[in-house]
């Protein structure tokens, strides 16, 4: 009962904070926190800390499509309902984090072990790290030191980092990914700005398909293809729909107005 009351108080306080923060500037996430997802479908129910997933470290090694199409992760945190058992059987995180896969010169640590030794328990913390002071294997600033920089988000120009060879993205895992016919890149197209004074946006299919393929966006995120078939406004995008699915969380943030409101997109 006490606990329930305490939780009620907490909710009240948080609701108060949220309501009170309507008209102020949100605090920007720090570069290494941009793209951090908290996954908590089952963790706390099983009395274990929620998982903090860092996009930056994974996107420095793999394409978006590999995880979001081939492995089957949803596009919203907590939409996939990953179970420890799934990981143990080699699905989701366990596709790579199986204690066997070799990346570079090291083995990828095993996720969600059945064993219950002290050593295993320590490994749990590597992902189930919310609220814990876990020292990560890779330090963000050290890891990204030489990468080409830009402002906002992770502060890294990922596209350039790949072009200049700082990162090499894996797009295929044997037994999981499908060998596909070479791509036919679709045409770029212009989206008309809705208000006077805002320039049109020229959307680049090429920029998007290299890392994403088709299924990541179509039809789940963008339904219509015919120009104007999907009507979406900045309000909705700010709320995390359409472009906002990625560009509020992982890809460069929407605050960078002129990167899209220009012809062509940068």
């Amino acid at each position, binding site marked *: *009962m*006490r606990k329930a*009351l305490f939780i009620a*108080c907490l909710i*009240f306080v948080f609701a*108060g904070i949220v309501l*009170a*923060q*309507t*008209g*102020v*500037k*949100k*605090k*920007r996430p*720090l570069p290494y926190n941009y793209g951090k997802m908290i996954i908590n479908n089952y963790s706390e129910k099983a009395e274990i800390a929620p998982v903090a997933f860092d996009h930056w470290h994974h996107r420095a090694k793999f394409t978006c499509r590999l995880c979001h199409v081939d492995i089957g992760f949803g596009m919203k945190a907590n939409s996939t309902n990953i179970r420890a058992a799934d990981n143990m059987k080699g699905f989701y995180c366990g596709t790579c984090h199986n204690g066997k896969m070799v990346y570079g010169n090291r083995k990828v640590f095993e996720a969600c072990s059945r064993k219950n030794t002290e050593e295993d328990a320590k490994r749990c913390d590597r992902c189930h790290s919310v609220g814990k002071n876990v020292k990560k294997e890779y330090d963000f600033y050290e890891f990204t030191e030489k990468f080409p920089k830009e*402002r*906002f988000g992770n502060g890294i120009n990922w596209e350039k980092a790949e072009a200049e060879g700082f990162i090499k993205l894996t797009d295929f895992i044997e037994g999981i990914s499908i060998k596909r016919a070479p791509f036919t890149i679709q045409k770029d197209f212009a989206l008309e700005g809705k*208000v*006077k*004074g*805002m*320039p049109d946006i020229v959307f680049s299919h090429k920029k998007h398909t290299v890392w994403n393929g088709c299924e990541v966006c179509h039809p789940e995120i963008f339904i219509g293809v015919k120009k104007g078939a999907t009507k979406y406004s*900045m*309000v909705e995008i*700010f709320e995390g729909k359409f472009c906002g699915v990625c560009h509020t969380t992982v890809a460069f943030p*929407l*605050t*960078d*107005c*002129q990167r899209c*409101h*220009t*012809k062509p997109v940068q």
Partner: protein
Amino acid sequence: MPYKTRSVISRVITLTGLIALVLFSWLLEVHGYWDFPPVPPLEEFGNLLINRISEKNGIKAVTFSHWIHRQKHTCRVCHFELEFNMKVNTTEITESANSSGKFCGTSGCHDGRIAFGHDKPNCEKCHNGNRGYGKEKFSTLSGLPKTGFGNGINWVKALKKGLIAPAHYLTIKPSEDISYETTLLLEAEWEKIPPAIFPHRAHTQWLDCNNCHPDIFNIKKKTTKHFSMSLNLKGEFCGVCHLSVAFPMNECKRCHVDITKETK
């Protein structure tokens, strides 16, 4: 006292406390309180002491003067390009970040060439804990157009007349394609108060779109009715800037242009 009764009593007390809290915050919100923040001397308006970790590390807090900086750079440069948050002590400015060319130490700013750098003899130019530091330089602004509020300077007019020429960017040139210039008419909450005008242009000369949108002002039109004067005065919406840096809200006429002594 039996345990059960005690816990019931404690629960009742907690609940009453909660209800009182709700009522109190509601009263504050609905009726507002019309106290404008205290008026500092002209040369201290917009001055800040930044003390996120300084004193914890045994160094004096940093003094920062908006009026010194806004002569040379627009708000956009620091609050967009250099990623300074809008609220003091929320940006993770560190000595090492500064020396590696971020925040204050960005190339073109306090890099040791354009403005004094982060080496020994300069420490106390910022780390002096004195909010009024550098006030002797305030007299150099005597040639700028006057108002009776804030710094006593009409910065917008000064910019328009070319008396100051602050840089609008360091590396990210604002897009010339974006030219949003609509002036909004904002109905006041009370009948007797004339509407406030909001000129986009006067703001975009200093700011970038994203300084205000969508965090401070969601672009959904209907939400504007939620930004009452009492919220503005609490530091939200217009109050993010127009209490502490931009002309303060005591200057009613700057927004509610048709206001007269009577309606005041």
